[in-house]
């Protein structure tokens, strides 16, 4: 199993839940690899260097590493938010992704960027406005830089245009109402993939909480582990 995290503040907010997921999958008998993309978390690189193209390469590297470590040919990828979009993009480029869990994936990069910017605007309402010493060529979203290049790459992300089926088996988890998630469901159901969609009442754990708490949505984790167990039994 490979777990692909979100980026930026969403990565920090989801770390706890994704670790719990890894522990539960390991307890169910699956080897799991969690990793950080280049310029994210513990990995090399500064945040300003984040690139979609590099992160896609990182996922391929991680799949290769996982296969070498486990000796297993089948790979299952779990992707949350942008990690979901990236894993679907990688899955459609290769034929060895057996199963794919898309947990509230980013469907459209433009909307994703708009949401990030409005979240940043909302946060600034409750804190003193930062005083810029010098102009930056990147946008600040809650302490994470979005470079011009990264923004242009993100704008091109659109899962509705992914041509090939990203995996043989797909679980789409939706924990909140969103039009683009419904469109994605429609798009994926027209591929040859075996698709299951689950609508679960769960918090949007990637969003900052008022008390700074990090949420672990138990029902989502249970569903993912159960589906992977069923699919790979």
């Amino acid at each position, binding site marked *: 199993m490979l777990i692909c995290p979100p980026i930026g503040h969403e990565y920090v907010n989801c770390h706890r839940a994704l670790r719990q997921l890894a522990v539960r999958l390991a307890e169910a008998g699956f080897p799991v690899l969690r*990793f950080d993309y280049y310029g994210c978390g513990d990995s090399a690189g500064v945040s300003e260097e984040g690139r979609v193209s590099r992160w896609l390469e990182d996922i391929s590297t991680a799949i290769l590493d996982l296969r070498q470590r486990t000796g297993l040919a089948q790979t299952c990828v779990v992707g949350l938010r942008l990690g979901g979009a990236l894993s679907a993009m990688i899955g459609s480029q290769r034929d060895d992704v057996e199963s794919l869990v898309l947990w509230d994936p980013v469907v459209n990069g433009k909307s994703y960027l708009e949401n990030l910017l409005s979240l940043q605007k909302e946060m600034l309402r409750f*804190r*003193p406005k930062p*005083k810029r010493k010098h102009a930056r060529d990147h946008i*600040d979203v809650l*302490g994470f*830089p979005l470079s011009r290049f990264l923004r242009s790459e993100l704008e091109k992300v659109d899962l509705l245009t992914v041509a090939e089926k990203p995996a043989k088996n797909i679980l789409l988890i939706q924990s909140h109402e969103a039009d683009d998630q419904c469109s994605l469901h429609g798009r994926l159901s027209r591929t040859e993939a075996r698709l299951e969609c689950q609508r679960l009442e769960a918090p949007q754990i990637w969003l900052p909480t008022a008390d700074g708490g990090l949420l672990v949505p138990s029902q989502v984790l249970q569903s993912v582990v159960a589906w992977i167990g069923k699919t790979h039994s």
Partner: protein
Amino acid sequence: MKNVVTNEVTKEEAVLFGERKSLVGVVTDPMRVTGNPRAAVLLLNPGIVHRVGPGRIYVKIARALAAMGFVVLRFDFSGIGDSTVRHDNLCFEKSAVRETQEAMEFLKRSRGVEHFILVGGCSGALISLETACCDEQVLGAVLINYPATEDEDEDANTDLKRRRAAHYYWNFALFNLKSWRKLFTGRANYRQLTQVLRLQVKRRFASRSTMPAKETSFAANLRALAQRDVRLTFLCSQGDPLLDELQEAGGDELQRSCALGKVTLDVIPRSDHTFSSLDDHDRLLDVILRRISAMRLPGHGTADSSELVFPAEAVPLDNSAVGL
């Protein structure tokens, strides 16, 4: 994938340590060290955020300090981030201090370092101070948004709520045109304003003897650490009500220690509790680097006195993702 990532200035290694090898951390080493090893810096979890810190600021701090020649360890306490939960009954305040000491022991064995500087935000600041009090290997600490009062439920504590409202009025609303417009157009919360003003008057004239026991022990800790010549830096966000609470809890002792140069109190302007903008990061990093550089090693002058001088900014590393 590998657990060591290097560039020309720093080297990062994922490590497991502690009594049960259950604590996960990343050591950032300088690539070249001349002479005796300097003090090592430990970065302690801010609340329950894992070892990268909010906005990945701990990674920036670790790399910048390593570029100056310090060994830096950022790690997760039990039950936070990637470290497994403890199975004893030790409360967090005690287990975290013990685990910080285990981290120091690990660096002592693996890197030969004998003196330590602790850096922590929020609860990490609390643990830093507690550890400094009980371990003589600690020569200094940088305490970011130190929570000097009990972590109370704001909804249930009207006094705390009013203190926080007062902080907002004095620091922000007073200078905000929109707030004044609200005041003069009848849209302000006049009841709350009156309560806050009453609280300010009460606080000004209240006797210090009425301070809670915890606050008195905080001042006593400051005194004890000053006698041991442990250098403390309190770093506070201007936008954080904890600043007022710190000054109130530290009272005369804090003022005296600041006057003697044993303690410094730096306020990072226009920042919030988690330093959630890149400009906050720059300001925070700048102060941390300056304060840690100025901390003296026993018998070695200041901590940055060796001939190695590296640029004090995060440097790009060459390759590879770190997996766990």
